């Protein structure tokens, strides 16, 4: 069996990873750390896991070598302790933003400070398998994509890789749930204030813009205009992207473009239907799954195509994607431990 440990396992993303790895046939879960809850049972932070495991949180100092080390720390912490972590495991999968950007200058621009270990940036492969599958297979270090970025990138990738859109007009609005802001309670996450609100959480300047640009650029600089709005939802992220074609294309042509990119992808479903209550991707159906559903609509009055791409921010936007990368890195079937199809109705 392969020994895996999780650093920072008390958060929502860490807890989701814990749930997946406990059920993964090839993995033996070694240690799961939390400074705050060291010595406590994991059920304390993750009530769904009570009676499922007797594992307890351990502290960072007691961390022992293992085969795969998952890092689920708040941004900025993984890079600080990089020395310690890199000595403990052959393979490291980081869910934070610390190593996602390949260029230190891009990092400084979006995170407002110099990257503490720029030399490590090139070591990490950006963790979206549908786009970097081969590189991830051979990688020892993977930095998983952020949830808003993953949803946006997977929606737009088929059109960008065939250079079909104007490179500076794309507008993306991601609607997100409350679990994306993490476990820490604040005045704005207080239920009477948060419930039923539609909040322009990041109208401009959202950090994931950098990852989207980095993944979609095809040799020529591009510009994307991202906005994030939080809505009444706990899990889920759905990107509504507005792109403008640089040539005339029919609906059927567009179907061909999306099929060419995603026909064989186990976790991407093309959802564009003319009947029923779920004609376009809807995150409601994806809670707990590793799917990214992608759909589109051609605007008959202009060159616009609206692409809709939905995920569970804690799964394909975090833990699920991390396990998918792990499966690739370990030469396992990519879908191992990720087959849950989601619940309906929910």
């Amino acid at each position, binding site marked *: 069996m392969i020994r895996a440990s999780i650093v920072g396992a008390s958060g929502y993303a860490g807890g989701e990873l814990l749930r997946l790895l406990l059920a993964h046939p090839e993995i033996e879960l070694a240690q799961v750390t939390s400074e705050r809850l060291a010595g406590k049972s994991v059920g304390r932070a993750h009530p769904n896991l009570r009676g499922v495991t007797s594992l307890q949180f351990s502290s960072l100092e007691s961390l022992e070598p293992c085969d795969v080390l998952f890092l689920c720390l708040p941004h900025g912490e993984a890079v600080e302790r990089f020395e310690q972590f890199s000595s403990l495991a052959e393979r490291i999968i980081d869910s934070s933003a610390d190593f996602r950007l390949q260029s230190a200058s891009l990092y400084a621009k979006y995170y407002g400070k110099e990257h503490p270990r720029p030399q490590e940036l090139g070591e990490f492969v950006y963790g979206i398998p549908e786009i970097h599958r081969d590189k991830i297979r051979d990688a020892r270090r993977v930095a998983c994509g952020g949830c808003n970025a993953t949803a946006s990138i997977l929606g737009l990738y088929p059109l960008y890789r065939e250079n079909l859109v104007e490179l500076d007009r794309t507008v993306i609005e991601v609607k997100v749930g409350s679990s994306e802001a993490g476990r820490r309670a604040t005045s704005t996450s207080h239920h009477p204030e948060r419930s039923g609100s539609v909040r322009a959480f990041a109208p401009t300047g959202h950090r994931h813009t950098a990852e989207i640009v980095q993944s979609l650029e095809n040799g020529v600089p591009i510009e994307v205009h991202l906005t994030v709005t939080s809505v009444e939802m706990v899990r889920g992220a759905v990107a509504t992207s507005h792109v403008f074609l640089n040539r005339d294309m029919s*609906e*059927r042509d567009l179907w*061909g473009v999306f*099929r060419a990119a995603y026909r064989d992808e186990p976790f991407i479903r093309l959802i564009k*239907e*003319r*009947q029923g209550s779920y004609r376009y991707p809807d995150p409601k159906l994806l809670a707990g799954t590793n799917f990214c559903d992608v759909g589109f609509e051609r605007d008959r009055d202009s060159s616009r195509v609206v692409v809709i791409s939905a995920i569970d921010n804690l799964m394909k936007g975090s833990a699920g994607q991390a396990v998918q990368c792990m499966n690739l890195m370990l030469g396992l079937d990519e879908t191992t431990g990720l087959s849950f199809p989601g619940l309906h109705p929910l």
Partner: protein
Amino acid sequence: MNACPVCGGGVNLPINAVLSELLDCGECSSELEVISLEPVRFAEAPLEAEDWGE
């Protein structure tokens, strides 16, 4: 495999299909009508536009 006129996806014709039979495309769920058997061809069946309100 015969192509759906709407999305170009593959539509498999039921064995004893007859002219003007209705079936759904498996990929885009458009309702299709068999308009010819030799060769097999489909047309999109008219869909009464569901009024999604204001």
